[in-house]
């Protein structure tokens, strides 16, 4: 146990205390890593099934450039798809809210579009857009807009009709009511969807890379798999997890700053 702890002490993730506010989760993370390390060692789990965290860390440190390049590429694809998907999601929610006929006509199509497995869709996207960053961003976009639309509509429907009447009695037109009432009121719901969409967009980007590319976390994952490089697979998983948590953290941080009033209506 003490040996495992000393190994964990050498891990790069052990650099605690840099952000006062996030010390606690980091301590827990380190504890979890140490625990996994201990379990792997104590139970003699073969590295084929689960390499020791220290091995995973040293795999990353062996070729940090490859992981950083992959991280950056996948990050760009994800963010592009996420931002575009979120904007499109909100715009479609506004359109569906404003024109009920359009909602009745097209909203079912939206839902159906999400039942097509993204893998099946991915091949077509790569055919259309080639092996470009854009192609992956499109897959991210495709996979992330629906929760945004659905939740924004949910937020709109939760607006108190008396509030709308009050705005009308002030002589407000539809655009003013949308900007001053519906959109802010939907923010709490919207952020729930954005957190979900940020994770989905990452999935979209990684899956998109499987259809062919030269850099990216998805590519690293495939390469490691073909080479039966188990430590490499796990290293990519860890980097992807960091990216996912980072994106989620940014959205959650924005949520705390923007939706300071919580769900109170």
């Amino acid at each position: 146990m003490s040996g495992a702890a000393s190994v964990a002490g050498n891990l790069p993730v052990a650099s605690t205390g840099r952000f006062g506010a996030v010390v606690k989760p980091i301590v827990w993370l380190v504890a979890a890593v140490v625990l996994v390390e201990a379990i792997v060692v104590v139970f003699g789990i073969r590295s084929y099934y689960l390499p020791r965290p220290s091995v995973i860390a040293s795999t990353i440190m062996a070729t940090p450039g490859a992981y950083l390049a992959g991280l950056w590429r996948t990050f760009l694809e994800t963010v592009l798809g996420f931002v575009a998907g979120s904007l499109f999601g909100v715009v479609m929610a506004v359109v569906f809210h404003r024109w009920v006929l359009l909602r009745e006509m097209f909203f079912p199509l939206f839902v159906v579009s999400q039942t097509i497995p993204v893998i099946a869709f991915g091949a077509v996207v790569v055919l259309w857009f080639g092996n470009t960053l854009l192609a992956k961003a499109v897959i991210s976009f495709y996979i992330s807009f629906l929760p945004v639309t659905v939740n924004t509509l949910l937020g709109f429907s939760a607006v108190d009709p008396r509030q709308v009447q009050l705005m009308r009695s002030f002589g407000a037109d539809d655009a003013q009511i949308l900007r001053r009432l519906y959109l802010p009121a939907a923010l709490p719901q919207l952020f729930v969807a954005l957190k979900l969409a940020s994770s989905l967009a990452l999935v979209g980007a990684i899956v998109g890379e499987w259809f062919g590319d030269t850099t990216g976390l998805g590519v690293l994952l495939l390469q490691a798999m073909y080479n039966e490089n188990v430590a490499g697979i796990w290293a990519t998983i860890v980097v992807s997890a960091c990216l996912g948590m980072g994106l989620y953290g940014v959205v959650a941080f924005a949520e705390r700053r923007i939706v300071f009033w919580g769900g109170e209506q």
Partner: protein
Amino acid sequence: MTLVEGYFHGAHAGAGGLANGRAPTRGKVVPGTVPEQDAADERPLIELRQISKTFGAVKALQDLEVSIRPGELVTVVGPSGCGKSTLFNILAGLEEPDPGNILRLKGVSSTASDLLGKVSFMPQRDLLLPWRNVIDNAILALEVEGMPRAEARRLAMDMLPEFGLAGFEAQYPNQLSGGMRQRVALMRTFLFKRDLMLLDEPFGALDALTRTMMQRWLLDVWQKHKRTVLFITHDVDEAIFLGDRVLVMTARPGRIKLEQAVDLPRPRKADIVTSPEFIALKKTLLEAIEEESMKSFQVAGR
């Protein structure tokens, strides 16, 4: 239904002397004067006649007649479900009465939707926006009108002390007590300067002590700003204490059952509620309301 015409509160509205239905009123200038439509010169700010409203099988209002003169504070009481809120929604321009009605604003016949944006309306709940602080909630209507934010905020800042909100401008609604939230909502209504203010049980959700404080405060503010107010309430004391006239509505379908002038001198002190005149008024009104409540109770029980 005869209007009680003998009483007119001379301290406001600029209509000097007694307003007698026939007598021409001299020197009365309504800004943005509209052509005279009929001979009646003591022109009500707003006049409703033969107002009915049916929702499916339910007749909420039937042949309701109300007329409000400029500067008056008219209170409306009635049993619950008597269509008070429907009346308010019509006056706020949110609902159209059944066809065949007469609705005149400053003597010009109008539809209810013409009233949209012409009446400042305060619903029962404060309906403050949780993401706006006190000052920005108060200026909501001004913003909708297109006034620049900085200017609107300046106007509102000047009004804060009067509404007992000085120093609270940057607070958010969830940091305020019920009474303060209600004052913010009232301030929003006051800042939306319109000829008619509609207040729908604004103090209904407050505790008794806060409510009396708010009533006295409202009278102060009203006398200073000289606004025409229609005030809905459940509370007979409140109706008498505040009003120039009290309208009692019948059980559904709502009509005006009784129109009672309140001749108590202003400014009214808190202890006026124990004066014999007040008690006598209360007795008359309570009897009328009681009768209607029993009626609606029996209808419900059948």
